[in-house]
């Protein structure tokens, strides 16, 4: 079954360092998302991306965050200068379409655990 793959599975970084998290979407999916889950808290929406543009972002997704799809396959989340509170699991998700029904369903990767020291 097609799946979303994420790398790295775990990254430890020093506060202030840049981090790039990578995601390979399901091949025919067109909509891409990043969510994060701080330990013990609920999953939170960060950003959605379609046609090489951000279509929606949350308040969490400030100027320190950016997304791109540089080579048409990988979808990346960059955190420019990490803070302690960025420590979380970051999940990439993809969907074939938007809207209701099966085509709009989101499929999640296994996550990248980011630890900021």
């Amino acid at each position, binding site marked *: 079954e097609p799946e979303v793959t994420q790398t790295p599975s775990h990254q430890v970084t020093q506060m202030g360092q840049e981090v790039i998290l990578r995601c390979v979407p399901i091949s025919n999916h067109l909509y891409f998302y990043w969510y994060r889950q701080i330990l013990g808290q609920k999953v939170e*929406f960060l950003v959605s991306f379609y046609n090489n543009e951000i279509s929606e972002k949350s308040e969490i997704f400030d100027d320190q965050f950016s997304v791109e799809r540089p080579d048409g396959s990988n979808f990346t989340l960059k955190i420019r200068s990490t803070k302690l509170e960025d420590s979380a699991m970051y999940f990439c998700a993809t969907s074939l379409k938007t809207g209701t029904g099966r085509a709009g369903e989101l499929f999640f990767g*296994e996550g990248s655990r980011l630890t900021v020291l």
Partner: protein
Amino acid sequence: TQLLEQSPQFLSIQEGENLTVYCNSSSVFSSLQWYRQEPGEGPVLLVTVVTGGEVKKLKRLTFQFGDARKDSSLHITAAQPGDTGLYLCAGAKGGATNKLIFGTGTLLAVQP
């Protein structure tokens, strides 16, 4: 702010028991998805409900979407230890993006 409250937060039951998890909101959603999440892994989609009043069954799991599309329930019959995990509901508003609002989660432990 759109919130999805799940209850109970924690549930520990014996194998063979039945249980129901509730997902409630004051907002209307175009669809609602239920996920199961294992520790250290991503949410895995179980089902999507779209129509108010819709009932979907997945083996021993029964999902219902409220008539007003503001709430949903997950009922598990004859729970098994393999059902142990974190159950998440997530509502979608639809439209240009499929941004999901996730519920607070219900952690289920089924004891053998």
